């Protein structure tokens, strides 16, 4: 559970930074404000998760700039708005699905935070879904779908291989109440349905495990 929680916090810190960058570049002023609000949520979730880590006996850097267990995709600025929305859907989506699997966690501090995080993530999901529909109807559709596939390569792997040691152990102790493959399938099916409703069929790439770094929970092509 230690690596999972650390990576959750590090990814949320990184996602917060990536969202903030697009808060001054979004295609509408409305979404710029929404991106700034979502950035603060992510930074807040990260900040509030580090004490959980401390409770697990991990020497966490509480100013939040220390951790590097983040997706390779979040190392640098997201290249375009399609990539932003893809991260909004899939990176945020995978992390939130994990958090939802911690609502009844035996790790009480995590369970307490999970409910608050889920309350705040509702608008992220609404923002991502609405933009996905808009992009699917516009001329950017193919470029957007390509970004989704690319983002899935990173976000889909965050839960690890089906027999991921960390997640399996967390499941046994009740720290997490839904297994990795089930979590991944929830996100995949939700995305496929979202696009199908717009008449877009998306085939997500098969995930292979070469280049998977279990310690940092990241994958590099």
């Amino acid at each position, binding site marked *: 559970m230690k690596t999972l929680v650390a990576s959750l916090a590090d990814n949320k810190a990184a996602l917060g930074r990536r969202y903030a960058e697009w808060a001054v570049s979004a295609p509408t*002023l*409305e979404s710029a*404000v929404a991106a*700034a*609000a979502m950035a603060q949520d992510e930074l*807040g979730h990260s*900040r509030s998760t580090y004490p959980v880590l401390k409770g697990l006996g991990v020497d966490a850097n509480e*100013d939040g*700039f220390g951790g590097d267990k983040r997706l390779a995709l979040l190392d640098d600025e997201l290249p375009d708005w399609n990539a932003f929305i893809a991260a909004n859907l899939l990176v945020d989506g995978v992390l939130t699905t994990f958090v939802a699997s911690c609502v009844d966690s035996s790790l009480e501090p995590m369970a307490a935070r999970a409910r608050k995080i889920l309350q705040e993530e509702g608008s992220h999901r609404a923002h991502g879904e609405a933009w996905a529909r808009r992009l699917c109807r516009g001329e*950017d559709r193919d470029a957007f779908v390509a970004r989704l596939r690319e983002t899935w390569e990173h976000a889909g792997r965050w839960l690890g291989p089906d027999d991921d040691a960390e997640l399996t152990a967390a499941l046994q102790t009740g720290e997490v109440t839904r297994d990795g493959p089930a979590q991944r399938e929830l996100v995949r099916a939700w995305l496929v349905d979202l696009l199908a409703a717009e008449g877009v069929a998306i085939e997500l790439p098969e995930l292979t495990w070469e280049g998977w770094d279990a310690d940092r929970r990241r994958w590099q092509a």
Partner: protein
Amino acid sequence: MEELAPRTEDEVRAHLAAGKLVEGLQHMSPEYLKGIRRILTVSADTELVSAPAYLRAAAHAPALNNFGSAVSIIQDELAHAHIGYRLLGDLGVDMPALIYEREPNAFKYPYAFDVPLDSWYELVLANALYDQAGFVLLSDVHQSSTFGPWKRALAKVDKEETFHLRHGRTWVKKFAADPDHKVKLQASLDWMFILTLEWFGLPDERKKHGIQLEYGFKGKSNDELRQDWMGHVVPFVEEVGLHVPAHFDEQTQRYVIDCPFPQQFDSEKKAWGGTEISWDDVLVRWKARGPMNETYVARLQKGYRG
């Protein structure tokens, strides 16, 4: 303009003289419409460009939660910009074109934002100085504006700018209490203070406010606003032990600027040359815009232009 704003100038004057607010195009004359569009554009552009300027400096935040506070301030600035642009939209302006299709040098905001903020010192000083300038200007609009929709919308801005000032001042106070930080803070204050003095524009002897005051786009003159701003900033910086080239003169009951003003400025080195120049020279510098103008506008238009 004539089609959109049906009233004559005399009708607008009579409407205002009766103590009524202008609620929309139906109450406006062409001159009123032109004037309110100009001041709304300046206000919205200023709020908008502060977002990329503050984001650049936020990269130097000492900790994650400080970065979060900076993003919160950026969110407020974007939402304030939204107020101006949406009101312009109601006044017949094509809002997306105005924000996303204008050339960088067509944006109308104070020159100060064209000079990069490169540290957390400069971010918090910007909150204490620039946001104070914005606050002084908008409080004046809030009190004096004859355009009802703007006057009402500014209640939101008032509250949020108070938070920005507190953010700036809390940090300035903290840094000023530490000798090492204080030296760096003072160095930034040296260029930022005089640049904010310029914010309020030409002195009253050079500037005819005529219609701006008459139609109630603003209540106070440039020099009065500059005095107001110094009244907030100078006592504060002195209290925390920093220095600025201005003091309060007991005899005239006014703040006096103790350095050549306006002054020659090196925007690349972010340094004042010490030589007094004319306001015409300043106007040339303003018109040419400063180092960050194109970068910031490109950032703001990135997602729209694709």
